[in-house]
């Protein structure tokens, strides 16, 4: 489903070149639930933005659903984001001007879907997250947990092949976090591929597989000696 080989991402400024990802290899199979962990500044968010086609990479290959994406133009990348990927952000990223219904509608609109079908999908996605009764509410009128559920509904409405989550519970209290996590697990059980970035070990433990990133590389936790000093590594080299 998601396969990166020898992938690298370099940030260039006037003075220095910094590698955010270096010889990065990962293979997420269809239907997997993978948690990506690592210290702050290790490159996990960079990985996620590249995985979600939000950003381009410098070298190596990235196959998404069997398609090599490095040569796609901006429009093609938008189309893939729209049709194959669902995003769940730490800060929810709902559009404050739009109510719940309209927020969930956004990706469907860009897909050019007809009105009745849009409505059906939106309502079923909202029922799925238990917020069908709040369709006319605005984000500001909802709790954090509810907002994140709306974001999940927005991600689900387009029936994506791949769900990318960036610290989905980072802005939530424990109780709300648990609810969101259960929702993700349920979605996974129904067959979705989920890649979740987190630095919460408890959360990571709920995934099928854990991938750890340090200094822009995937490491095997058992063998790598750097693991023990990882949290004090010079994170400053890497753009945060």
């Amino acid at each position, binding site marked *: 489903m998601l396969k990166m080989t020898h992938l690298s991402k370099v940030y260039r400024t006037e003075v220095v070149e910094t590698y955010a990802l270096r010889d990065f290899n990962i293979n997420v199979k269809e239907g997997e639930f993978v948690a990506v962990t690592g210290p702050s500044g290790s490159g996990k*968010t960079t990985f*996620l*933005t590249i995985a*979600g086609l*939000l*950003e381009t990479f410098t070298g190596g290959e990235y196959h998404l659903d069997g398609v090599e994406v490095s040569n796609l133009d*901006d*429009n093609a990348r*938008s*189309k893939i*984001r*729209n*049709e194959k990927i669902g*995003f769940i*952000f*730490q*800060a929810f*990223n*709902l*559009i*404050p*001007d*739009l109510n719940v219904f309209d927020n969930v509608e*956004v*990706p469907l*609109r*860009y*897909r*050019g879907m007809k009105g009745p079908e849009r409505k059906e999908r939106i309502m079923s996605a909202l029922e799925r997250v238990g917020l069908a009764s709040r369709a006319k509410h605005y984000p500001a009128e909802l709790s954090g947990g509810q907002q994140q559920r709306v974001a999940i509904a*927005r991600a689900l409405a*387009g029936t994506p092949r791949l769900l990318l989550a*960036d*610290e989905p519970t980072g802005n939530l209290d424990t109780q709300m976090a648990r609810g969101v996590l259960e929702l993700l697990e349920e979605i996974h059980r129904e067959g979705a591929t989920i890649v979740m970035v987190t630095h919460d070990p408890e959360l990571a433990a709920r995934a099928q597989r854990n991938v750890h990133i340090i200094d822009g590389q995937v490491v095997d936790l058992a063998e790598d000696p750097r693991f023990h000093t990882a949290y004090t590594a010079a994170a400053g080299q890497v753009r945060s």
Partner: protein
Amino acid sequence: MFTYYIQLGLRSLKRNPALTALMVMAIGFGVSASMITYSVFRAVSGNPIPEKSSQLFVPEIDSWGPGLNEKGEPPGALNYVDAMALMRAHQSKRMTLIYQIGLSTLPRDADSVPVASNGYAVTGDFFTMFDVPFLYGSGWSTADDDARAADVVLSREFNQRMFGGANSVGQKITLSGHDYRIVGVTKRWNPSPRFYDAWGGSGFGDPPDFYLLLNRALDLHTDNVGRNSCRGAITYNGWDQYLQSNCIWLMPWVELDTTSEVARYRNFLESYSADQQRAGRFGWAPNVRLPDVMTWLDVQHIVPPESRISLIVAMSFFIICLVNTIGLLLAKFMRRAGEIGVRRALGATRHEIYAQYLVEAAAVGLTGGLLGLLLTAIGMSGVGLLFEPEIAQLAHMDLSLIGLTLVVAIFATVAAAFYPAWRAAQVQPAWQLKSN
């Protein structure tokens, strides 16, 4: 998708009513100032006779010579001697001579007082050359010119005053004590600018009351009440000597259909002037011009400088309003960079973002255009305060001006939105994710 953008645009405009109002007002004021001044400019600078303007020419002959002519250019009218010589030469398909006259008329009821009437003394070709439309009858023939007949053509307005609008052809009318036979009544015809009198008058104003057969007017010593210009010491005494003087006052026009005819006529003017030089009448080499209608109006500076200045200043004002709008749209769009990032992440292409914001700008433009229409309509009623009455009365609101106002407002606003919308479309989808 378009309707979605409209929904989004309206929602966004409602969110910042003050900013929206400011943009709408800037566009409205800018476009209405431009439209009010343009409506005046359009009226004074238009082509008064579009279908024939490139076939009608003013033959100019330098009858004054170096030092007395107009900075090297021949004067804009002819003296009697040259005018009559050109008429007799018959070198063009049609030709007319024109001068302005003022006569008295006595309305029919016996104890009323005479009223002044204004018109032109013209030759028969005037009506055919200028495509004068007739309500009743027609103009007169060149044979009538030669017969020095007492013929007159009335304007529709004058016929209305004198005959209550009835067909007066064949009837008699007394003007300044002389009887004339009415041969025709024109339809409403008042080309603006009045190109054929551009040298003599301001070029604008009420339509003339009548057109009198020129030879008859000359026979009766009917004086020119329009422009008259002389050089050197004035020594004539009486009408006949005046006709032989160097004073210019007759406005000539010729009709020439092809470029070869034009070239031939120019040669004729040259050779006529050369003949005059040989005969000792002109002490200088031939100096002739043959401008067509639009060139003539340009040479005569028929467009008042006020009209040009106000149009230029109003359009500059509009440009400033647009610069203002660019700044405000930029602020407005970039304030929503977060939302744009989310939309991009959810699969909106750059084009879709671009289109969304251009549609929003078009909505501002349309609203600004509607306000502009309202302000233009108000401004039109006040245009009499800004321009001289004879110019102001030409400015009017018509369908084309309404359409132009809206189109200009929308186009200008969308054009102003290109850069801000482009900036919005450049917002990276990754940005929002990263900033958390």
